[in-house]
């Protein structure tokens, strides 16, 4: 009999089934074979000596996180981040599967590049890495890439990355074409002509700071356009990183009319509001920007209602030379792989969310969107797991982060909830010492 690993004395949290109870889990050869309250110390006694027994000591065991939006610098800008360093940050953050954006150099817009990412990740990454395919060639928003062949090569979905497709005709045809394969298209909602050279959320606070603001309508217009095109083409759409309550309402309304639309939210949008940019902090210069408190609360309410399909890290490593600049000149982006789970757990600790509602959009939510078997504590699912202490307080110091770039807006912040151990296919890929 193949060696088993038994994890017992754990609080089992599984958003897919709604399970929240004390019990244990058994996995064999990387696959979960049993889970439930019946797996306890007596079973441990019955197990032959060769089994690995892990006492979770009452800590929480959940499916490993799935993050649908990660940028690395590989290929092209390895000084920012490689697939290897990003996977280390992921493992330390309890993320066991992540999707890399095609915004690389060269752009992941061909079968060869998708293949490169898959093979490279298989060689160096500690966690599972899925490439997203570029929707248009070079992400230029003009000509669609080989969506069929790239999809067959293993692209998780298609996206134009950080560059919204401006030309509605191109977007419409790409959606039409993709719908023939039932492929998922992720689109970042932005009207670039309204957000060019902006630094933060538009409004009174930006005006007081003397900074150019990105108006929320730039997002609303794009959300409406893409939802409309998804409706008429029948395409599957993921509205990527909405940041306002109104965008969420639009997605919900469209869904009520049968549009096949999902939406994601960046974890930072759930934690910060525009006031956090206060001291011209360039680590807080991100896109979409931190919005007002009302929008933050609306997104939290969306999580409670279960209408946000995915919360993403929007991990975007940037080196100091691009961040240690006056805020108007600094580049956008923040690392987030390692803080994704702690941000959600901090919201739970502050009583803003239940643990199940917080974890669904990082486990079964994205898994269902991509049709992945992981993201659940269920018999037959891969043993991608995270063991964490949901209330342990810690101080985030950017120098302790595993990412090669340290541009975290959480630097110097107190967070609650820490990852203790991460498993991918049953193998421990991170353990806090």
């Amino acid at each position: 009999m193949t060696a088993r690993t038994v994890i017992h004395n754990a609080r089992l949290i599984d958003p897919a089934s709604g399970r929240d109870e004390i019990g244990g889990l058994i996995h064999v050869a990387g696959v979960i074979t049993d889970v439930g309250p019946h797996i306890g110390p007596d079973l441990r006694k019955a197990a032959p000596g060769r089994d690995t027994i892990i006492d979770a000591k009452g800590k929480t065991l959940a499916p490993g996180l799935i993050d649908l939006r990660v940028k690395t610098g590989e290929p092209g800008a390895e000084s920012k981040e490689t697939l290897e360093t990003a996977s280390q940050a992921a493992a330390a953050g309890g993320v066991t599967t992540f999707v890399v954006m095609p915004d690389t150099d060269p752009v992941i817009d061909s079968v060869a590049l998708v293949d490169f990412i898959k093979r490279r990740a298989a060689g160096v990454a500690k966690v599972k890495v899925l490439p997203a395919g570029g929707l248009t060639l070079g992400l230029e928003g003009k000509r669609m890439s080989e969506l069929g062949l790239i999809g067959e090569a293993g692209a998780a979905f298609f996206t134009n990355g950080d560059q919204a497709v401006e030309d509605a005709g191109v977007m419409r045809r790409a959606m039409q074409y993709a719908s023939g394969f039932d492929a998922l298209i992720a689109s970042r909602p932005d009207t670039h002509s309204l957000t060019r050279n902006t630094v933060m959320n538009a409004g009174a606070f930006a005006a007081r700071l003397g900074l150019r603001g990105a108006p929320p309508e730039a997002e609303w217009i794009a959300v409406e356009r893409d939802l409309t095109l998804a409706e008429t083409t029948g395409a599957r759409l993921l509205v990527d990183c909405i940041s306002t309550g109104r965008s969420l309402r639009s997605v919900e309304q469209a869904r009520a009319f049968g549009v096949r639309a999902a939406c994601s939210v960046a974890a930072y949008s759930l934690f910060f509001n525009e006031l956090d940019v206060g001291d011209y902090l360039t680590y807080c210069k991100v896109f979409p920007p931190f919005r007002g408190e009302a929008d933050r609360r609306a997104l939290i309410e969306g999580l409670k209602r279960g209408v946000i399909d995915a919360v993403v890290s929007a991990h975007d490593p940037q080196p100091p030379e691009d961040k240690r600049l006056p805020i108007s000149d600094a580049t956008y982006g923040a690392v987030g792989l390692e803080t994704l789970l702690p941000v959600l757990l901090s919201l739970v600790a502050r009583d803003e969310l239940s643990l199940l509602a917080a974890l669904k959009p990082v486990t079964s939510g994205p898994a269902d969107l991509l049709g992945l078997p992981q993201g659940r504590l269920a018999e037959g699912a891969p043993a991608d797991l995270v063991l964490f202490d949901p209330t342990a307080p810690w101080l985030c110091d950017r120098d302790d982060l595993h990412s090669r770039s340290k541009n975290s807006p959480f630097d110097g912040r107190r967070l609650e909830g820490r990852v203790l151990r991460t498993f991918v296919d049953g193998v421990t890929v991170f353990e806090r010492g």
Partner: protein
Amino acid sequence: MATTTGASTGADYAYAFPHRHLLGIEGLNRLDIEQLLNLGDRYVDLNRRRVKHVDVLAGQTLLNLFFEASTRTASSFEIAGRRLGADVISMSVAMSSVKKGETLIDTAMTLNAMRPDLLVIRHGSSGAVKLLSRKVDCAVINAGDGTHEHPTQALLDALTIRRRIGDIGGLRIAICGDILHSRVARSNVQLLNILGAQVRLIAPRTLTPPGAADWGADVFTDMRKGLEGCDVVMMLRLQQERMDGAYLPSAREFFHYYGLDQEKLGYAKPEAFVMHPGPMNRGVEIESGIADHKTRSLITEQVEMGVAVRMAVLETLARNAPDLGAKNA
């Protein structure tokens, strides 16, 4: 030798073709179509003789007016006209007066004043041929208008199938490729439906016209499923400019999913025939081995049927034309 009378002589014309022009398949009924095909059938026989000439259009003037480049359709009409004894003038208008700024209607009025009897028109804009037909006194034949209709192509395709297989009723016929921009597909779907075929359209969504499901055809995006049990596979030409990422990512991706190769053809009936209106893009929509297949490819046969069907159309419309001289006398 039949040099003075057409193939239509005989007592079998109880039904008079009721149209002055041939602007499209739309508006034709089963009798109209069968009459043209029957006459075409007889012209095939004539065309296989050493002396391919009759005088049914002697003294009449056929004007071929091509506003869009064409080799096979223009020469097919020209040969058809000459074999029927007409005086044929072919003009490629793309490079003449239109370039000088003359409007389409002015060109038509000018040519009409020269008193042609039959006017064959190809134009890049849908509806342009119909517009011209309202401004002239002679019979107008649509040789392709924009992405609207190409009725003689549909007739020649039907004649080809009829001669090879027999009755078109009940056959399962797939039309594959760029349906959106195809006038051939639009004419063929209508004609094949009238003759009782089961029509299937196979195309990527970007090249499937909105509402195609209401054309009386089953629409497929998966070519293998679409080809299942088909008796005839009609491939369409894919314009180069459609493949540059606007409608399709690339020629190779198109061939991968929609190019007719041995493997995909294997999903059709074992003896299914392959057709293409030409000119072909070998390696894009069709594999060379299939295009040149001795028993299954009907592509060169289609060209032969084209001349015969166009002779039938010219003769039928000429017979219907009012004699203006007599009326004004």
